[in-house]
């Protein structure tokens, strides 16, 4: 016999309360700040509209349309891709709010959760009161929810879906679930294949489906059909398993009034950092990547993630916060080549200018504590790592580096400087192994300027050398390696070697330059970059 039968006959069916938030993927995107409120928007899944806002709905967009079709009906439709991770992440706050008024929440899917309501009924006095408490808790977050109460999870979900905007609470009386479900269409079962088959067989409502004898349904439709039949009869066998609330691992330190000196912040943060590491240790975890959010008085935020070769201790956490506070300024790239350091190492977000009021520490990547022990063989020597980290905490995070080969046409791009303890960005090795046509031939220059140095490079008439559009240029005659130096004759040269890349990418990596290799009158060899009469020294052979 099915479990549904046992539950149905053995004892009184458990009463279930379901909280449902309509159009959750859309609401989650709005909460995450990826979509503005009150605007025609749709969440796309597999190229089709999965959820759309009421503004879009009033323009004629419905679920299941293709994007192009939807855009033809509503031209200013904002479409974003579905992201189950975002849905689940944003739902966590709603769950916490519901859990405060109704303990023992079971998450059915993001946007939908169920609670066994018996205890709450005793506490609040009635099921209406309990449902009202849940509605109020969600409304306090500025969200709109529907609540249904019935004898099974399926019936309660259908009750919540039937609740309207005006009366957002629908209580199906005890034993009334089967009658309540009766008039609903079979499509409500959520199984399109079965629903279409049932309709073709002439069974259009859940009541008609439930009236069929259970053994016949099982033999015709198999176990899935039997389960759907039990649901339609109001005997959903799905049990409610209250979730175990996750232990919060993140920590925040609030400063009131705000602090504006780094040493004060570092000192005040110390207990929080210790608590953070201790909390992770209790959970058997080691943090290998940490995200630091710093908020200042003016509401600006600085965010950055930090890696660690082994695991973060309290002192390491405080160091990372201090470095993040110190690294305020960002060097601006000049000349035809950008800076040598990749933008990944800079902190994202705005520059802080007001006193800091909050520092949040979030473990971004964790590992089992047992797996992070010190390696006996292989890996970086403990003493070496310790010594370099001490130097790093003295000079600053970006001062102790190691070089990683990267791809690129400019020499400065071809080696990426990575702070000690961090890994190079993903794909750096693959980039380095690409062919890069037009690379400078060996031997390579020993001195590669991180920022190209402005120089003078003149032809025989004393005019800055210019290459025409076909790459032809007069022979160079004079070279001056900087304002403090004298003019030197050019003894030998080769070029111009054109360096044209990514003409379509105007913002980031478009580059149009001419390269020259020269030996000057002092016997020094240089690699020059020129663009429209302006010249820079990219590197010196010494």
């Amino acid at each position, binding site marked *: 016999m099915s479990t549904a039968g046992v539950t149905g006959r053995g004892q009184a069916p458990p009463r279930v309360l379901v909280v449902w938030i309509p159009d959750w993927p859309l609401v989650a995107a709005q909460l995450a700040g990826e979509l503005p409120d009150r605007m025609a928007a749709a969440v796309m899944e597999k190229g089709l509209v999965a959820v759309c806002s009421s503004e879009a709905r009033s323009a004629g967009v419905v679920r299941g349309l293709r994007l192009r079709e939807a855009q033809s009906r509503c031209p200013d439709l904002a479409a974003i891709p579905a992201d189950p991770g975002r849905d689940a992440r944003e739902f966590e706050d709603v769950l916490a709010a519901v859990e405060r008024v109704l303990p023992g929440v079971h998450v059915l899917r993001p946007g939908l959760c169920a609670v066994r309501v018996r205890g709450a009924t005793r506490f609040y006095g009635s099921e209406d009161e309990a449902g009202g408490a849940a509605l109020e808790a969600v409304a306090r977050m500025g969200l709109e929810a529907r609540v249904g109460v019935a004898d099974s999870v399926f019936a309660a979900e259908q009750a919540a879906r039937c609740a309207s905007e005006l009366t957002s609470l629908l209580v199906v009386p005890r034993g009334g679930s089967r009658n309540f479900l009766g008039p609903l269409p079979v499509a409500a079962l959520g199984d399109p294949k079965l629903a279409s088959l049932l309709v073709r067989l002439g069974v259009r409502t859940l009541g008609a489906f439930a009236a069929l004898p259970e053994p016949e349904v099982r033999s015709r439709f198999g176990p899935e059909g039997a389960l759907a039949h039990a649901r339609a009869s109001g005997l959903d066998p799905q049990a409610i398993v209250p979730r175990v609330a996750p232990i919060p691992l993140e920590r925040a330190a609030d400063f009131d009034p705000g602090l504006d000196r780094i040493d004060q912040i570092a000192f005040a943060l110390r207990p929080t950092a210790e608590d953070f590491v201790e909390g992770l240790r209790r959970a058997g975890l080691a943090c290998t990547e940490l995200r630091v959010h710093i908020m200042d008085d003016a509401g600006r935020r600085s965010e950055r993630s930090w890696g660690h070769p082994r695991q973060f201790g309290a002192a390491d956490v405080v160091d990372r916060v201090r470095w993040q506070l110190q690294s305020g300024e960002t060097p601006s790239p000049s000349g035809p080549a950008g800076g040598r350091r990749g933008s990944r190492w800079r902190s994202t977000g705005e520059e802080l200018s007001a006193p800091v009021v909050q520092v949040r520490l979030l473990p971004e990547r964790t590992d089992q504590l047992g797996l992070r022990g010190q390696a006996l063989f292989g890996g970086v020597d403990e003493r*070496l790592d310790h010594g370099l980290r001490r130097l790093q905490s003295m000079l600053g995070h970006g001062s102790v*580096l190691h*070089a990683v080969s990267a791809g690129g046409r400019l020499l400065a791009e071809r080696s990426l400087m990575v702070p000690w303890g961090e890994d190079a960005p993903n794909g750096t090795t693959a980039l380095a192994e690409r062919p890069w046509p037009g690379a400078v031939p*060996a031997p390579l220059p020993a*001195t590669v300027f991180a920022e190209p140095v402005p120089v003078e490079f003149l032809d025989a008439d004393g005019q800055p050398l210019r290459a025409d559009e076909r790459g032809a240029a007069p022979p160079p005659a004079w070279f001056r390696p900087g304002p403090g130096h004298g003019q030197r004759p050019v003894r030998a040269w*080769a070029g111009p070697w054109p360096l044209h890349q990514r003409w379509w990418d105007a913002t980031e990596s478009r580059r149009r330059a001419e390269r020259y290799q020269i030996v000057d009158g002092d016997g020094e*060899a240089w690699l020059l970059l020129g663009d429209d009469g302006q010249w820079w020294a990219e590197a010196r052979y010494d």
Partner: protein
Amino acid sequence: MSVPLSSTSVASAAEQLRELQERIHLLQGRRNREVSYPLLPAFSPLLPDGLRAGAVYSVEAPLSVAMALLAGPSSQGHWCGVAGVPDFGAEAAKGFGISLERTVLVPDPGDRWLVTASALADVLPLLLVRPPARPGAGDASRLSSRLRERGCTLLVLGPWLQAEGVLGVEGSRWDGLGEGHGHLRSHRMNLVWSQRGTRRRTGIDLAALHADPTPWGEATPAGGLP
């Protein structure tokens, strides 16, 4: 090896004591004193025994010579540190045979370069430093004794008072580049090594030291000919 607890004579006790002291020295890492780091074969006319651990050498020569000196020990698995060289061409270093995974760079220690150098000397066996200023005699000798104690070899780009030896350049010439054609192919350099009154000379081609020179042939890059 076991040490017998009951000794029969005073002489054998003294011998054991000496033996134990030697083992303590070994454990403390003082044996590094006798170790030297091998160099690339091109430098054998100048420094047949390689770089002595714990010594300071002054390299009054271009950066690429210093890179070629580091390449020998680095390719043998030793860690290297480079401090005060912000424009260190890592790709050229790799070309000489320096292993970038075992190289630590401190591009800009600024005024704290002495502290940086001694902190690096604690953990790394080889250092290349370009001092931004000439250190005082006291600072220099403190650093030297630190280096001796740790067995760390220091190559200074520039002059150094108590250097073990000085590597200088008597002349260099680039070849391969013409008037509008070709590219740099060879870098002939006459190096002179002076150590306590003795001088040794040799000529090397630095470009030939590149471990994996790109096969280039006679072709010039696109648009190379005017």
